[in-house]
């Protein structure tokens, strides 16, 4: 029977020759991830699985990133709970603040912890990010995480899939963020509910790894179980450069069945912005009109990588952030921060009038480092613009690419990169 790429990975990890959509399988896991919010709950559930120790000390990754560096005493307690568990269990991939830290989904690929063909769960919805390197990875809850840590396996309902065929080439100032916002606008926030988004087509060769991470990251914003890219030379180069373990390459069968197909022509895309309060409320930059803003956030697991920093810095170089705007730049990992410093990007940001933060999720989920007051508007390179996500319930988040965010910071209103040349 013909299978999608996701189905092949699940079949291999369930020890089956084939699986079909809707089937429930028990699958072996290559990596189990948790953060400072979800791990303490998982640690509470862990004893219920009747095991003293985790299934494999090397296959668990614990990342303090949401409220770390600790934002208050309660957050400090959660981080301490996770740190103690990591020590007691001898978990190898625990990433301490300042040493090797960063936002989990930017950090794990950078550390070579995810590879093509892997089956990964994480107690964080954006775990779907690793589909960028050809892995099956999906977000789960804390009880699932505890199950994964204890037993090294968990249950999945095999998803059906939507095929997203990508053709052509981006125009200048258009990137992976615009593609995924466009797609979510097209199919809606539940358009791919319980399904895989499987990307295909000759246009994929045009997408940088950063673009692919951004796109796979936001598969969940279309309700998808996972988003996945075929493995090409660029993927293999990336995995090698980051010391990932040997990739196992799966490809969808030619005659695999899809629920539907969506075709996207890259050259038709424009910078795209998602209006409050759903990622599906997208508009092309030309249709927006004048929207004055109070804050810009450039960072997160969606767009806090070095490529994103470079794009933002190129637009801000030699310019000043609008006097009415606070611009907060958050390199997603310690390594991105260091590279940004070495390349002079941090200096460009600081001279433009941005504040540059330590790696953290911070304002992305309304934690700290840039909370919005009543009525304030923010352009963010993050992934969610739900009610109250970044602060007051009457604040507004506009999701956009690093290029649009940087241009908006300069202009003081939502702006196209060309407008601030």
């Amino acid at each position, binding site marked *: 029977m013909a299978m999608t790429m996701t189905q092949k990975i699940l079949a291999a990890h369930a020890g089956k020759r084939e699986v079909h959509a809707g089937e429930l399988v028990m699958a072996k896991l290559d990596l189990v991830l948790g953060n400072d919010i979800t791990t303490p709950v998982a640690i509470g559930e862990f004893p219920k699985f009747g095991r003293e120790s985790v299934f494999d000390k090397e296959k668990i990754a614990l990342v303090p990133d949401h409220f770390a560096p600790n934002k208050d005493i309660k957050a400090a307690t*959660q981080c301490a709970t996770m740190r103690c568990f990591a020590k007691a269990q001898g978990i190898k991939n625990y990433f301490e603040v300042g040493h090797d830290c960063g936002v989990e989904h930017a950090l794990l690929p950078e550390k070579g912890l995810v590879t093509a063909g892997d089956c990964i769960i994480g107690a964080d919805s954006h775990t779907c990010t690793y589909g960028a390197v050809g892995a099956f990875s999906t977000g789960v*809850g804390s009880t699932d995480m505890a199950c994964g840590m204890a037993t090294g396996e968990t249950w999945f309902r095999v998803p059906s899939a939507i095929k997203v065929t990508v053709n052509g080439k981006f125009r200048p100032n258009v990137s992976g963020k615009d593609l995924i916002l466009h797609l979510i606008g097209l199919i809606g926030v539940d358009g791919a509910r319980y399904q895989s988004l499987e990307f295909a087509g000759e246009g994929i060769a045009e997408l940088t790894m950063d673009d692919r991470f951004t796109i796979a990251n936001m598969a969940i914003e279309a309700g998808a179980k996972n988003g996945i890219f075929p493995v090409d030379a660029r993927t293999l180069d990336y995995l090698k450069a980051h010391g990932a373990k040997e990739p196992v390459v799966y490809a969808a069968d030619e005659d695999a069945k899809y629920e539907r197909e969506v075709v996207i022509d890259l050259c038709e895309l424009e910078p795209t912005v998602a209006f409050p309060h759903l990622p599906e409320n997208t508009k092309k930059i030309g249709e927006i009109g004048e929207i004055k803003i109070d804050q810009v956030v450039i960072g997160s697991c969606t767009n806090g990588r070095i490529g994103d920093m470079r794009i933002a810095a190129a637009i801000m170089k030699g310019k000043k952030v609008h006097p009415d705007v606070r611009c907060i730049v958050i390199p997603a990992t310690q390594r991105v921060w260091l590279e940004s410093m070495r390349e002079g990007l941090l200096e460009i940001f600081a001279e433009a009038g941005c504040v540059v933060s330590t790696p953290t999720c911070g304002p992305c989920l309304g934690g700290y480092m840039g909370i919005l007051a009543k009525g304030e508007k923010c352009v963010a390179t993050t992934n969610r613009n739900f009610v109250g996500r970044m602060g007051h319930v009457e604040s507004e988040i506009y999701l956009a690419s690093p290029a649009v965010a940087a241009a908006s910071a300069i202009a003081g209103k939502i702006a196209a990169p060309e407008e601030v040349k």
Partner: protein
Amino acid sequence: MKAEGKVFKYGDNVDTDVIIPARYLNTPDMKELAKHCMEDIDSSFAAAVKEGDIMVAGKNFGCGSSREHAPASIKAAGVSCVIASTFARIFYRNALNIGLPILECPEAAAAIEAGDTVSVDFETGVIVDLATGAKFRAEPFPPFMQDLIAAGGLGAYMSRRAAE
């Protein structure tokens, strides 16, 4: 197993950020979190909800983050069952894993009004709106889920499986 209670009704795409805002996630104490459940879309919910009450909503309930705090705070608030047109994937999984009964039933979700008293039979999937007498039938859980629920959640299910 049965549930009966007064209905709190919400619309489509109720996300995990409004079910339990991230600003409160610096504690894993679900009783504490229950005090803030739904507050960003319904500030009176936490004070008004009584043990056994029922939540009814539109499509894609629980979309957004993977925080198990969302179904857990609804459960800790006393809600006995959530009925929605559809649920977001991770929320669905989490609710079953922690033992919060949820039922997908678009007809019931559309017809039942806020404040109605509703009874639910989990074995048969029959939902009755006692205010109007209207009857609905929800999809029963697949057999695997029934095993998981019967075992008392994922932990018990997996350790029983290991013992076999």
